[in-house]
């Protein structure tokens, strides 16, 4: 099992969610986050003075899937989150040891389906 965490532009969320559902993902978690990459944020203008926004608002979504689905899910995110401009975000894939569904106590494959 793998956890896929993606930092994306907030306005791409709807598209990404649809693609993930099409790819067979049954559940996902979304968090509003702030951060920056190589561009170190951006500048804005207020009353003639520039100021820097170091941490830009982003959306982080996390989804846990069976290992064989990872490529499909990653492709779905890349395809739907990409605008081609800086700030499109990153995807992180990591191992998940165990999954438990709280209501039933089911674990791993049963808990994910």
């Amino acid at each position, binding site marked *: 099992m793998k956890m896929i965490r993606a930092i994306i532009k907030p306005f791409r969320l709807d598209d990404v969610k649809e693609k993930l559902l099409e790819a067979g993902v049954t559940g996902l978690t979304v968090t509003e986050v702030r951060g920056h990459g190589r561009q170190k944020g951006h500048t*804005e*203008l*207020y*009353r*003639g*003075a*520039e*100021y820097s926004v170091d941490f830009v608002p982003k959306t982080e979504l996390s989804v846990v899937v069976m290992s064989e689905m990872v490529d499909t899910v990653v492709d779905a995110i890349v395809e739907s989150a990409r605008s081609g401009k800086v700030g499109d975000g990153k995807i992180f894939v990591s191992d998940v040891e165990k999954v438990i569904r709280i209501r039933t106590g089911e674990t791993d494959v049963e808990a994910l389906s």
Partner: protein
Amino acid sequence: MEPTVTTQLAGDILQTKYALDTFYFLVMGAFVMWMAAGFSMLEAGLVRSKNTAEILTKNIVLYSIACVMYMLIGYNIMYGDSISSMIPGFSFGLGGDNEAAAVLAGGEDAPYYSNLSDFFFQVVFVATAMSIVSGAVAERMKLWAFFAFAIVFTGIIYPTQGMWKWGGGFLDEAGFLDFAGSGVVHMAGAAAALSGVLLLGARKGKYGKDGSVNAIPGANLPMATLGTFILWMGWFGFNGGSELKVSDIAEANATAMVFVNTNMAAAGGCIAALLLARLWFGKADLTMALNGALAGLVSITAEPLTPSPELATLIGAIGGALVVVSIITLDTKFKIDDPVGAISVHGVVGIWGLLAVCLSNPDATLAAQLMGIGVIFAWVFGTSLIVWLIVKAVMGIRVSEEEEYEGLDVGECGLEAYPEFNQTRT
């Protein structure tokens, strides 16, 4: 027609005119009172969210202090029997209203509106002047130090210079013209604000040690925009009511002219400020457009009657361009931190408005206008500085650095304007 019937009819017409002019005065006064709401929203929008509740508290309480102080002593200082053309008289409370017989006597000297309606109209002007101070010292002044200053400013400082002009004092005798108060109200408020800001210093983090200027963006621009629209609307009362009368053809036409010119000047100021900001900074700067509209209004306040609507638009536009230059100059060259631009909008542009009287009013002289500007500024700035210094010595005027970082909402009011979003920002 029988003579008695004619007399009866003439009396009825006088009564109707008296009622109409009083009614007009009261409604225009209520419009100006609403400007307090405009200032509250503008200031609440242009400060950070951690100082919202404090600035709202300041605005509604300063309005109330102005009302009480002006009733107790201010109105009599400004319009009571004066000792000389420079030294006002002093007495407490409000007098009675007009006798019906005096009104019905008719003629030039007969009163044509209620005395209390005059008090009501004037008292809301004092509050306007005091509101100007509130925005400039925002986000770092102690709440109660501000209230202490408000008592002296609305009770004594403002009414004294008001008497010099509108109370028939020496500025009026010298031919100084100020229709609705570009000087008496707006520049006076800005002069008091400037003296306070100079003693108070800039907000923490506004200017870097290397001389850099940091932007401190306002928390809520919809609110600031609403405040500007409310002020724009209230200004129809401010200038329109200052015509003092509507009940004959000439006065009705004049009042309409004042409304039209007031509106045009604001529009001109807004457009000019936006265009200049776009050319200068490369972006359509909303808060400059808001300040530009207000600058247009301040520009036309000294003389909203004699210019043509085209000239009024131009006078407002020059004010709107001037305010952008002034805000940037005060900020970057003089390091005077004025979060809402009040000193530029009301002070620098107030001076322009007083000078612009000469463009359309043949009775105006440059010498008298300059004299008025100098006298009002020197009096208000000087006396305000003394009062601020006394307040500073007695109770201090600036909150602690820690309170400034935490926000004045919690420090002064013990609450937050938006408790659901309690994340602290610098």
